[in-house]
């Protein structure tokens, strides 16, 4: 099995890795980089729990070979809202994460890292989506707990807040954001 020396920039940090040709990006992130935020639910691109941003686009990281992502910039949910590298106790959440918290848009939380990254991408492309558009755009992310209802509300709330508050930024583009809608949440 051939190996490849690759470089990934993950949540702003450059990481050098040696991976097999067959190594999936999600496994490189989880076991090579040690960022276990993206989850594995199906390894076949069906559930969306492993969704990350690769060079600014939402991708299912189980459908990308790590070697093919060489040189890429990856953002995972742990890189949003300035949470990366934070100590214990509190976390800064970005507008989307805050809305998921406020609207009870998560229960077990296993789909959440992927769901949030999909929503970040959705709102970057459609700042004011209708409920039908939201539901359609979430088709690649399965949630077995919430029935999606409060996920949809969270997306609507995040969209409202982003449109009302010009200071607010989407976390994917704002790893260093310290203002806007980021909020302190007790852990």
């Amino acid at each position, binding site marked *: 099995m051939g190996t490849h020396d690759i470089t990934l920039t993950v949540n702003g940090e450059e990481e050098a890795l040696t991976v*097999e040709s*067959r*190594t999936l990006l999600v496994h490189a992130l*989880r*076991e090579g980089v040690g*960022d*276990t*935020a*993206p989850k*594995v*639910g*199906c*390894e*076949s691109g*069906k*559930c969306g*729990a492993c969704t990350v941003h690769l060079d600014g686009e939402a991708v299912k990281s189980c459908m990308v070979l790590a070697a093919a992502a060489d040189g890429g910039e990856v953002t*995972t*949910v*742990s890189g*949003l*809202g300035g*949470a990366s590298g*934070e100590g214990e106790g*509190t*976390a800064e*959440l970005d507008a989307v*994460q805050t809305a998921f*918290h*406020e609207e*009870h848009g*998560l*229960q*077990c*939380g*296993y*789909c*959440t*890292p992927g769901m*949030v990254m999909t929503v970040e991408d959705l709102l970057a492309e459609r700042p004011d989506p209708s*409920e*039908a558009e939201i*539901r*359609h755009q*979430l*088709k690649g*992310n*399965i*949630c*077995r*707990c*919430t*029935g*999606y*209802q*409060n996920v*949809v509300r969270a997306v609507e709330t995040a969209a409202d807040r982003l449109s009302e508050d010009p200071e607010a930024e989407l976390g994917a583009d704002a790893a260093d954001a310290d203002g806007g809608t980021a909020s302190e*949440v*007790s*852990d």
Partner: protein
Amino acid sequence: MSLTDAPDEQREADEAAGETDDEGGKLVGQGIDRREDAALLTGRATFTDDADAPRVAHLAFVRSEEAHADVEAVDTAAAEALDGVLAAYTWADVEASDAPGVLPISAEALDCDPPGHPVLARERVRYHGQPVAAVVAEDRYTARDGVEAVEVSYDPRPAVVDPVEARGADAPTLFEGAPDNVAVTTDLGDEAATDAAFAAADRTVEVKLENNRLIASALEPRAALAEYDAGSDELTVTMTSQSPHGHRRKLSETLGLPERSIRVVAPSVGGGFGHKGHHHPGEAAAAWAARRLGRPVKWTATRSGNYLAGAHGRDHRTTAKIAVDDDGTIRGLRADTDAGVGGYGLGGGASLPGWYGSLLSSEYAVDAVHCRTRSVFTTTAPVHSYRGAGRPEAIYVTERLVDAAAREVGMDPAELRRRNLIDPDAFPYETPTGATYDSGDYEPALDVALEAVDYEAVKAAPDRDDDGRYRGVGLACMVESTGSGFETGLVRAHPDGTVTVYAGTHSHGQGHGTTYAQIVADELGVPYDDIEVAEGDTERVPTGTGTFGSRSTVVGGNAVAESAADVREKATRIAAHRLDADPADVTLADGTFSAPDGSAVGFADVAAAAHGGDRPAGMPPGLEATTAYESEATAYSFGTHAVEVRVDADTGEVDVETYVAVDDCGERVNPTILDGQVHGGVAQGVGQARSEHAVYGDDGELLTGSMDRYALPRAASVPHVETRATVTPSPHNDLGVKGIGEAGTIAAPPAVVNAVLDALEPLGVDSVDMPLTDERVWRAIHGEPGR
């Protein structure tokens, strides 16, 4: 009973109250945001596969490609020769060890005595996907290479996947002691009385139906990380468990180790739905291999492995009858059911179907009920409880029958239901199948549902909408038994006055970290933020049962509440001693004890005193209490769900226009979390009604072994659910609570199917089996070509 109306406004008020901490008010009843969320939203929560250990090895299974066969030979040599493969194990290795290696079966509840499920196949396989061998390697990819390299030869036997066919004379026998494959036949109710009731009734109606086989599909596949410390001879299994103490006991039986030497840790768990309460081969095999290898061993199910070999749910075939008088009075109910239980009994899975009939009379005052259920082995994955576990099967039968009866006597289905509801003054109410309902007031919930769905208007509207689609409205009334068994709650005040609540339940989405803290804050009188909740570790939590069957708030909530009250009582005596006052005169609010003379002492000072400071003479040190709580009797939640649909007769497409869920679970600890439970349960119920179906080919191959074949609901296929509540407290526990976790999976399937059948009544369609895919609905309308 009281009504909680206008849910959105109520919810906003709840939230506002929660955020302002509602000075002096109770936290129970407020929809405060969950404290669990931050870790989950930032990727910092640790799920089992996220956990690491030094020198961890990875285990993967060779799974049977046959549904039913004798295993002639397993050749592991090529696998063992691979670089990075540490070992390849078969049953022979397990048999040669000191571990029994078998998942126990509760055979005392069966009519036969079949063996339990071996962790690796012992001579024979009985379902597609059964683990045959296990490969352990340095990394997960190499473990899979090893799996590919193992050669298994089989001598196939005939498969049988349908429980009715499995009882036939030509069917292959799975276990010698059950030649007709019937594990147990269970009779509930009085057959003779039911015969008499049917003979005396004006009319009888029969319905044949299938309760489709389902796969729980928690988004996190099952996983385990087993670490063995040879120095202390202790085994720690971090695993995806709803029931840490239950799994410790089961692992102890399979591994032949005392419970005291096993620690089970259930960290963040990505959904359970019953599935993660059962004892499966993977976790046990990882634990066995870790001891054998002297290295940590991690096993994480693939999605297909989880679908093939994790316990499935439902799989009933039922012929049911209702006896009804012309005035709509229900005289009797009877059901005859064949329930597939799969190729092995897992724990009590093979006897579980026998109890489903206990809820057949549901909300109705019916004097005669009889249910006969045969649990039948088939060459399929084991079947065990899945969210609802018998209640959805029962209520689906009842609600289909009630609609059929309304059609037979020409009465409106809502009116027929109303006429037969148990009177609110009749509680406690004993049913003909032996259940005793604690409390209920069923008619208001029905009325709220009818009003919210605008029932009269929909019924009065033309059969077809302007666009030609058929219009239908369906109802499902239901009861749900909740809160069985015992649970522990330990409340411990630390010397600094902060509090930890240790509970034997496990939260995997239910938000116990928030709701238990709400309950304890109210009972103990200390600030919510000073209270943490610990679950999911047999070494931190002394003993417990787990989370399943809509039980946690009922038994876990009351356990922690009682302990909190005990701690408060002791703390008050210490405070009174410090304040030189009578304990009866000392009050506690927001963490401060006050005496009538205005003097005060903080809870933290009292807690410090309890741990070695100035306290009443003779009082033992410490400030904690443990309650092993057992509910006096089962609490029965209830409610009515109402659904309006449109059906396109040309395509078979069904659209759910309106979904109203009215649920009564007694006192409501956190309405936001409660609504979330209903949303999720309804989505799973709509999934069963519309798309989910675990299908086996006649040769025993699971045809729906992946997420692209097993159709889970997605955001666009789930309706918006309008939640309403009535509140009828349970008299059996101090909190007045009942469970709610399974209500949606119980009510949604009959409500949706009844709505579709109502829409199709003008077309002469009176039956269709779930899942109501477009194709099935189209065939119900247009007939089966060639038949």
